């Protein structure tokens, strides 16, 4: 049984991507997607995207990978198709599934153009010839075939597709919130084996994030009850300042400082519009 799982092929072939990438757009998408936030060890003074950020999960400790252009220890040797498979499907060039600590399920709908842009941007990252520390996952979580079962059970399409009848701003918010900015990764609770309980606890908060912090509920009812408005939420994504004059703590500080503050006012506003609206079922 396990033998079959080990060789069970996963993922889909990626059709050749020949589009020219735009470095600026790729950089913007990388910011929005949190690549830089999670793959840069700010605490330890690490170089941009050299990885090594420790994530203490209930299953063991993971370290973010080196995503610099180093051909051996980074991703400099990857083809754009290998890159696409990693980002959209969570599968390494060797065909191994990544742990879902890497938020690839949110990136599944990135277009070929998005991928080409990201790829072009990553090409510009200075190579850092340092290996990220090895993961400390005990048995059985160090068995990657287990992730194949996990994928089969839990991998779902992200909610990024436009809903007809909604205005472009709302749909842009949906694209960002459900995709690149992957809000649900922290703000939706997870089950015992780390899958999001999206069906009935979407955005209900997570009391036990990796590392011991908590993420509050951000469903629209809660946001409204806590006096958020589209305006104040968009501003908080830029500055970290909340309506009561307090500021974000926890990892949300990092989200703002390394991510959302770099977005355009229009995109932050679109996220806020979507988050503050009843988007259940859409």
């Amino acid at each position, binding site marked *: 049984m396990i033998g079959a799982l080990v060789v069970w092929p996963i993922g889909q072939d990626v059709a050749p991507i020949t589009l020219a990438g735009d*470095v*600026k757009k*790729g*950089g*913007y998408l*990388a*910011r929005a997607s949190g690549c*830089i936030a999670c793959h*840069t060890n*700010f605490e330890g003074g690490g170089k*941009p*995207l050299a990885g090594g950020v420790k994530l203490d999960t209930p299953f063991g400790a993971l370290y973010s990978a080196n995503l610099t252009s180093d051909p051996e220890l980074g991703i400099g040797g990857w083809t754009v198709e290998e890159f696409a498979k990693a980002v959209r499907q969570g599968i390494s060039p060797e065909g191994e599934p990544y742990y879902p600590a890497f938020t690839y399920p949110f990136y599944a709908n990135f277009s070929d153009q998005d991928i080409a842009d990201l790829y072009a*941007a*990553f090409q*510009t*990252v*200075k190579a850092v010839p340092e290996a990220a520390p090895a993961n400390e996952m005990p048995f059985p979580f160090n068995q990657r075939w287990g992730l194949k079962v996990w994928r089969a059970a839990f991998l779902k399409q992200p909610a990024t597709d436009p809903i007809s009848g909604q205005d472009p701003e709302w749909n842009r918010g949906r694209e960002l919130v459900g995709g690149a900015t992957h809000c649900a990764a922290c703000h939706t609770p997870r089950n015992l084996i780390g899958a999001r309980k999206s069906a*009935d*606890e979407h955005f*209900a908060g997570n009391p036990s994030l990796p590392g011991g*912090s*908590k*993420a*509050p*509920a951000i*469903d629209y*009812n*809660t946001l409204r*009850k806590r006096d958020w408005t589209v305006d104040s939420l968009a*501003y908080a994504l*830029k*500055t*970290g*300042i*909340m*309506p*009561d*004059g*307090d*500021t*974000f*703590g*926890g*990892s*949300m*500080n*990092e989200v*703002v*400082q*390394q991510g959302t*503050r*770099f*977005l*355009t*006012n229009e995109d932050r506003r679109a996220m806020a519009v979507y988050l503050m609206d009843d988007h259940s079922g859409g």
Partner: protein
Amino acid sequence: MAKKILIPSVLIAFIGVAAMAHNGATGIVKERMDGMSAMGKAVKALTPIMRGAVEYDADKVRSAADVMIKHAGEQMISLFPEGTGGMPSSALPAVWDNWEEFSKISNELKAYAEGMKIAAGNGLAEDAVEQDDAMMGGSNDTMMGETSEDTMGGGTMGAETMITAEMFATMPVDTAFASVAQTCSACHQKFRAKEN
């Protein structure tokens, strides 16, 4: 339906616990909580001014800055003697495990609040409401720059970059305010247990 009712009641319970915790604080813990609240009020008062939502008033900015100057730096540090963590305090043990860093951020907050006071006379950035991205090294400048460092994570205003008084003297006040707020948030990330 049951779940829809359950979630808010859990939240209410949580808010209740938080309120009790705050009320239960006495002595030095209460004193520092009051200081934090005063600074929060100052930030709240400053926000509409910095966003250009109300008419700019340099004196209001200066007096809010004074509140922060008063409660930051040595004053704040002195209110965190060892052994005053744990309930009802929201301070994490990290405060005392990383005392040097905690002190550094407290002092930075004071320096930045002083800077904001200096910058009060400069007013807001041109068209602050429209272009306020620029205040923290915004999208077009920092992130989408032409060099590799700027595009993909380098060149951002790192925690180690200390802003000097001379820089504040010519800085739009909303840029200075952003530095103050960033200091609050950075400290809360590392040293405060409370969720938000």
